């Protein structure tokens, strides 16, 4: 399959260029060609008017092309300065000149307005600061073209603002900054020029001043975007899920939840906002019976859950759309039919006595694929060969067709393209409108704000604030998520 087809792109010194498109549109492939990770089958790459061939990122760096990946490539045990100079260390006779490294980093930091301590250990830094270290790394290597791949995906709004301020200063000093993103609003706010990719081709190019988010979305999808669904708040009913005083351990046996208080009522979507690693994963696992809690109480529909057991929670009426779809959501190697039956496979229409009812299952699954618009409509394929969006729709279909009282969803739209995101979000609102309860755990604050009737901010394993939709405030929630504003309920 061709990932890129006859794409031409110019990057000018000091400009802020954005590259937008759905997943699989070829953005990342194009950037990987630019960074020497892939080699094009045909076509040329010119830097400052001269033809070049990049065999590796090392070649790209040598020609002034730097890239900051979504997954940071830093050594947590080393200091900021050591990480920045890694691969191009100052010093003689194989000895690292630590002072020179720190001077270099301090110089760069000052010039571009980074507030990063050169002597801090990277392992102690937050996500926003680590990203700055990655940018410093590229600058230290003399990058004149800096590619930022989905840089704000893991940042709070304030961290994102800071990042863009730094990136603006870089472009003012003559560095070209390429932003790869599918958040159209931030693209328009930051970039001067926007290139749109679809199905491996560059389909449009705009000056930011002359276009709108709607126009961009239409080009990204190849059709006008559906209007965003109007938010209809449902009247909340009885409490269906309640966690009180819940404590739980996380990775390496460290306390991850240190007193969680939350309630989800029938008819509402309740969001959990927070920076990654503040206990979201553990919270979702406790609420679905996958993780043991050490103190406190978990109640589903008023019944105290006796033990952490997914079977028990399911029987009590909890559905789960997990964060790690491949690990917890589906059995790879199972067909769509088998996957869709999992958990309901012992009852009609999926079974007749001890035997699988092949016909009943296949007609039931065909119906569900239609109802959920899962493509292709072929239940005999392995689920893992479907696209991410269709896999997610299939998992949602399985969980919601059980008609659970409480649906726990974690990062439900991560990695999905615009069309799939809209459909998944609409289904979650619909579930609440029908009287279900939805607990939505997402690292994407925008998603929490768009979908929730109420939201809790989770910081350092505690629910530090509970807010009604009327009181949603992006800035303030961002500060609560970072722990820079004291807990307050409002």
């Amino acid at each position, binding site marked *: 399959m061709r990932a890129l087809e006859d794409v031409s792109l110019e990057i000018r010194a000091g400009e802020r260029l954005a590259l937008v498109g759905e997943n699989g549109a070829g953005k*990342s492939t194009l950037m990987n060609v630019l960074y020497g990770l892939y080699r094009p089958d045909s076509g040329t790459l010119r830097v400052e008017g001269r033809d070049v061939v990049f065999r590796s990122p090392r070649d790209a760096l040598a020609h002034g092309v730097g890239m900051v990946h979504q997954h940071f490539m830093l050594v947590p045990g080393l200091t900021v300065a050591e990480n920045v100079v890694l691969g191009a260390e100052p010093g003689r006779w194989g000895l690292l000149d630590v002072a020179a490294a720190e001077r270099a980093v301090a110089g760069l930091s000052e010039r571009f307005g980074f507030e990063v301590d050169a002597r801090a250990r990277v392992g102690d830094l937050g996500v926003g600061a680590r990203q700055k270290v990655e940018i410093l790394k590229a600058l230290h290597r003399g990058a004149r073209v800096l590619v930022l791949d989905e840089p704000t995906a893991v940042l709070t709004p304030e961290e994102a603002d800071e990042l863009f301020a730094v990136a603006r200063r870089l472009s003012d000093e003559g560095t070209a900054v390429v932003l790869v993103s599918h958040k159209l609003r931030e693209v328009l706010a930051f970039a001067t020029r926007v290139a749109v990719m679809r199905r491996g081709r560059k389909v449009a190019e705009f000056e930011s001043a002359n276009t709108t988010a709607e126009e961009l979305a239409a080009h990204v999808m190849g059709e006008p975007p559906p209007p965003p669904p109007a938010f209809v708040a449902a009247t909340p009913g009885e409490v269906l899920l309640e966690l009180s005083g819940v404590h739980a351990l996380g990775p390496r046996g460290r306390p991850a939840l240190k007193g969680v208080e939350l309630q989800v009522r029938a008819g509402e979507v309740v969001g959990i906002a927070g920076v990654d690693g503040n206990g979201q994963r553990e919270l979702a696992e406790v609420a679905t019976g996958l993780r043991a809690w050490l103190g406190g109480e978990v109640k589903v529909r008023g019944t105290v859950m006796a033990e952490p057991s997914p079977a028990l929670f*399911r029987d009590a009426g909890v559905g789960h759309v997990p964060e790690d779809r491949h690990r917890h959501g589906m*059995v790879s190697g199972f067909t769509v039919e088998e996957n869709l039956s999992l958990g309901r496979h012992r009852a009609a229409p999926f079974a007749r006595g001890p*035997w699988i009812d*092949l016909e009943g299952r296949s007609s039931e699954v065909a119906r569900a694929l239609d109802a959920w618009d899962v493509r292709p409509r072929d239940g*005999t394929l392995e689920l893992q060969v479907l696209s991410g969006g269709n896999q997610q729709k299939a998992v949602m279909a399985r969980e919601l067709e059980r008609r659970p009282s409480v649906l726990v969803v974690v990062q439900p739209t991560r990695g999905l393209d615009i069309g799939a995101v809209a459909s998944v979000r609409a289904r979650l609102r619909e579930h609440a409108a029908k009287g279900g309860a939805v607990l939505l755990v997402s690292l994407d604050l925008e998603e929490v704000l768009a979908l929730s009737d109420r939201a809790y901010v989770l910081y350092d394993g505690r629910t530090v604030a509970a807010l009604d939709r009327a009181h949603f405030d992006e800035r303030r929630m961002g500060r609560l998520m970072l722990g820079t504003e004291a807990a307050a309920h409002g």
Partner: protein
Amino acid sequence: MADPGRARVFSSLVSVAVALLGCFLALAASLGDVGTAAKAFGEMALGGFGDVPRWLASGEASAVLRPLGESAGKASVLLLTGLSVAVAFQVGLFNIGAQGQLMWGGLAAAYVGAGVSLPGVLHVPAALGAAALAGALWAWIPTALKLRRGVHEVISTLMLNWVAVALVENWLVVGPLKGKTGAGTDEILLSAQLPRIAGESSRLNLGFPLALVLAAAVAAWLYRSTHGLETRATGLGPDAAHAAGLPVARRTWTAMGLAGALAGLAGAVLVLGSEFKYPGRLAAPYGFDGIAMALIGGNHPVGVAASSLFFGALRAGGTRMQLLGVHRGFPELIQGLALLLVAARLGWTWWTSRARSQADASEVPRA
């Protein structure tokens, strides 16, 4: 499911064909004579699948039935141990311990066959049942170690094979259970022998249809029952199965118990069908051959049956290759080479899909 399945069948067939060809060429080269090599392969075929020309020429049915009986005997043991390994694979466990489970099964069959007096209709089932139970119990030791203590089953099942050798062959068979005459245990009673089904000239016995029926039953259980669906989910995606509320640990116990029982039955078929006692030493490492049968057969009961029938016949036919001075272990060489080729392909698939998923991971936005 159909397509990858078909690809696996194709790949196994190609592997077996290449192994046959490769071994033929190697034999021809080492003899320096293609004609003799061809004759040796011809003898192997006649010995394995029956001397059809002689049967047609003389009308002696035994020319076909005797070799087929030998093939069926080998095939039924291969099939049972192959199923044992394949069933354990379904819950994601690599059962290298079929050999030990087979020994205990054989010993239990010999003990019940010789020591208990029952009418024929009951004696054979009782001996088979004892063998299945013994094999299952032996397989539950590594299962318990795995589920309770996290001990890797490859280590525990492999080491338990040597414990089985020590306990069965180096102690019980030469000590407390030693027979009155000769090496090994006492001969089993006539009522415990697996009845022959093709006359006295052929050793074809009840063990063969029993193995085939068990293969069909295992296939139906795995692919048609809800219990089997849960078992396969446990192997393919234990975390997803657990999250979906399936009793993952219980399915592991059942599958490993069944794996042990099948290997135990293989021991019983040897003892009740051809040895008629537990000999001093068990002749061939059929438990390890089971791994080859499972892998070449793609861990599917039907595939395991096909490869067992084929290699059972080749190995029975190997005896006739001796007439031309070729070692009778030659068919095992073919089996080994076929296994290597299948394993190489599995390894290659794993390697390339791993490389691909790593490339994907660096490519697909995760936020």
